[in-house]
């Protein structure tokens, strides 16, 4: 049976969704803060599903606590469960912080979690809680699954951590020359390591948030670590108010830590798309140079040159090829820009998010194409497949859920983004910076070449 059904326009239902739910995004951010444990306020299934999903991509332990609602909790409210959960997590993990996220369940029954947490903190201060003497910081992100996608949860959790931890006096900008905030968006662990290297080449004073490069892609351990090492240090988050500027990759659909830092603490905000492709990378390195007051180190010039060289070497393979891209809005916008600059037409650019600005955003980054491009927000995979039928795409770029698109259309899928659960090393894919772009460029070229080679019989081994 083929999934290519007769098109029924404007579907109400979502068929093979192209988005995940909000608490998942929040949990990833929380796992990227040192010593922080996520706690989902809702049914234990949420925690189990989200752990299961994250684990299938990262192949690492992902501990996420839950307040374990049962039917009576759903009826009578979850405060006691939440308090018990906070106690147990505090005692057993001795965490530096607990990030609480809501669910559709707790939001539907109207739980006032901020109020609960204030009360918990008061009780705790009074010594009324059985918390083993542990007093982790507690952030709260409101992340009902029925509002937005995992990216809403992601940005919301960033905001929760920043707005909770940043303190201190407002400072004058000149004092802070050199300190850089980077809000990294939803990227791979390898991307985070590359960002560390890039940032480190400009300054040692930076806050990269979140940073799950070690906590979700760590080494094997000789002895088990209950809370994996790594993550943005809470004390570095605290310092974000003092920075010379915040580079913020992507757009926060709800609360925006970048804007908040600018408005509340006067930290200038430099928002840009994820640095994939020359057009998105050049401004990034330039901003870092500006904020740090340091010239762009030679290594990035060399990488940039090698990338251009590859663009030129490979342009004959990619030029005029047609791609389908999908995924998070921020990711798709960056991919679209990258593909456009190497001469590929993203004939479909789709996101599962319900986003009014998406179409204009994508159109804005397509500087070169002369062809029509289908841009769809609130899209699901069945819709994408239906759209793709007459567009003769050459390949697909996105996460593992595109496999069935790839099979139905008979074209290769270049796996990137999240989730990647049918290959190993998804967390180690480098997408960002000149080097990451080169990696994606090689993957795209080689997927196209392989498809071409596979169509030929003998006599076709140089391409």
């Amino acid at each position, binding site marked *: 049976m083929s*999934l290519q059904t007769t098109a*029924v326009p404007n579907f109400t239902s979502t068929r093979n969704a192209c988005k995940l739910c909000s608490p998942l995004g929040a949990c990833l951010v929380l796992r990227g803060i040192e010593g922080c444990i996520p706690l989902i306020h809702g049914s234990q299934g949420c925690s189990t599903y989200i752990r299961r999903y994250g684990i299938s991509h990262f192949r690492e332990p992902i501990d996420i606590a839950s307040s374990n609602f049962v039917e009576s909790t759903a009826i009578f409210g979850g405060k006691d469960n939440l308090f018990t959960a906070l106690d147990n997590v505090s005692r057993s993990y001795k965490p530096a912080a607990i990030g609480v996220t809501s669910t559709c369940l707790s939001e539907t029954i109207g739980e006032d979690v901020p109020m609960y947490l204030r009360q918990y903190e008061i009780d705790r201060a009074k010594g009324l809680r059985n918390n083993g003497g542990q007093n982790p910081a507690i952030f709260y992100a409101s992340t009902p699954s029925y509002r937005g996608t995992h990216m809403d949860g992601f940005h919301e959790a960033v905001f929760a951590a920043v707005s909770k931890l940043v303190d201190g006096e407002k400072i004058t900008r000149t004092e802070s020359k050199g300190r850089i905030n980077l809000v990294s968006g939803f990227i791979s662990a390898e991307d985070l390591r590359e960002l560390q290297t890039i940032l480190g080449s400009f300054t040692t004073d930076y806050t990269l948030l979140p940073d799950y490069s070690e906590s979700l892609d760590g080494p094997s351990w000789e002895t088990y670590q209950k809370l994996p090492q790594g993550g943005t240090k809470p004390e570095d988050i605290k310092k974000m108010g003092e920075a010379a500027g915040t580079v913020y990759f992507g757009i926060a659909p709800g609360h925006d830590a970048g804007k908040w830092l600018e408005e509340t603490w006067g930290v200038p905000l430099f928002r840009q798309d994820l640095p994939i492709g020359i057009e998105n990378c050049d401004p990034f390195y330039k901003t870092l140079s500006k904020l740090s007051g340091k010239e762009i180190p030679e290594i990035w010039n060399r990488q940039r040159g090698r990338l251009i060289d590859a663009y030129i070497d490979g342009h004959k393979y990619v030029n005029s090829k047609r791609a389908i891209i999908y995924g998070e809005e921020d990711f798709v916008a960056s991919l679209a820009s990258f593909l456009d600059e190497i001469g590929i037409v993203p004939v479909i650019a789709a996101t599962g998010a319900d986003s009014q600005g998406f179409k204009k955003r994508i159109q804005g980054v397509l500087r070169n194409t002369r062809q029509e491009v289908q841009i769809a927000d609130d899209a699901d995979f069945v819709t994408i497949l239906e759209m793709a039928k007459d567009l003769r795409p050459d390949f697909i770029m996105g996460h593992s859920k595109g496999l069935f698109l790839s099979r139905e259309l008979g074209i290769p899928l270049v796996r990137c983004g999240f989730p990647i659960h049918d290959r190993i090393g998804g967390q180690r894919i480098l997408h960002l910076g000149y080097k990451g772009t080169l990696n994606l460029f090689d993957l795209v070229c080689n997927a196209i070449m392989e498809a071409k080679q596979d169509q030929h019989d003998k006599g076709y081994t140089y391409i």
Partner: protein
Amino acid sequence: MAEVYELPDTAEFKAEILERYPPKLAKKRAKQIIINKIENDDDVPEILANTRTIPGIITMRGCAYAGCKGVVLGPTRDILQITHGPIGCGFYSWLTRRNQTKPTTESDVNYMTYAMSTDLQEEEIIFGGEKKLRAAIDEAVALFHPRAIGIFATCPVGLIGDDVHAVARAMEEKYPDINIFGFSCEGYKGVSQSAGHHVANNKVFTDVVGLNDTFSKPGKFKFNILGEYNIGGDAFEIERIVADCGLSLHSTFSGNSTYDEFSSAHTVDLNVVMCHRSINYLAEMMEKKYGIPWFKVNFVGAEATSKSLRKIAQFYEDADLLKKTEEVIERELVEVEKVRLDVKSRCEGKTAVLYVGGSRAHHYQELLREIGITILSAGYEFAHRDDYEGRKVMPSIIVDADSRNIEELKVEADAVRYKPRLSEEKKASMEADGFAFSDYNGLMTEMPESSLVIDDCNHYELEELLDRYHPDLVCAGIKEKYVVQKRGIPMKQLHSYDYMGPFAGYKGAINFYKEIDRLLNCSAFKFTKAPWDESPELSATYAFN
């Protein structure tokens, strides 16, 4: 069975575990962590099971929705399934289990790769989502016109006043040739996915089984397998073997299953049960309503498979069938024994722990024992007392509030279709000859003396156990996988089989032996320590107090 392996210091271990819990929690967990002891052949200590998980303690359990949609209905290819709720649950349950299915013709439908959701938005949470659900059903009908549609409720559905059953009835009126039914499997129902199994099987029983008296398959000895979910193609291997014996497998609940098979499942002579936990009530209800006897089988493990085949053959009391069954067993065991002995030579004396589901933690002990591996500890994620202690304790199980939320169906003999397959006398005489019906002796009677039985084992307990007893192998689920492997211990997923398999039947046994051999003899673990590293960091340890 029940070899004696003196797991040292279990009492001390248990005490230490409990010591670090707050008193109330310690008291509860004390009843769920049991040092096994078998007296009078099948008397075992009482265990507390099917009870709530403590908030903030990281459990291995899932929710009712996962049990209903993911586990039970998931493997059915031609019932179109719609998740009613926000997008998360529908996405996470989209092909996450490695259920396989084999449409018999090119035109057979297969909705397993199709994940349909009403994707509820804030507006519907406020104003209600039934309209959207009806629209989704309209769309499903326009697209596929399926034989049957199942609607699965997620957490907020009941709370916002949506009635999936009312919608199902209304839409059935609109589409009289489509069987439409809803499942009240909100995630917070019950204490684990077990609740979801129950919701699922109840609905399949009331709304599907018994509708079709005509669908049939060729063959003389017709039976159903209940509680076999075709992970890794297990059902295919079982189908292969029973067919070779001359049996006619009518319907598998629910691995590689179809709507026709379900709806005509009441026409067979016999039900055999694989996973006691998830489905024993369905067997009971079918016996009551249709007169079909049942007994427990196990196709995991070569010996268990042979035993199960022989029992089925005995049930039919057919000489040919008995002969063919013996031939199949003899034929299959040649290769099984060859591989088993080779693998055993390398695995003998190794130790394992299993924390899985509601029957696999039991079944897989067979396979492990066959290659000489000793079980140090085992436990279920979502089982009830009878799964540990055997069905004889069922009358004494206290039904608590969480269980009461799951409907207990009142079943009576069907006026038309009730037909006892065995007369009372015949059944009694067979039982007198030692042929057990409606049987299950539970996990503990087959566990080694003094081994640890832990219900709803959590991360803390698992980690302590690993640190104390250093098993050579852990069998559990993906959430535990990397916790275990990070400490250098090989780990086998027994929910998804690590997307390998089949592990059931004879070929499955061979696959499993080889897989365990590979795991236990994998050299990757030996590199954990760098040759220049002499002072490893000390690990943090849990402390609840």
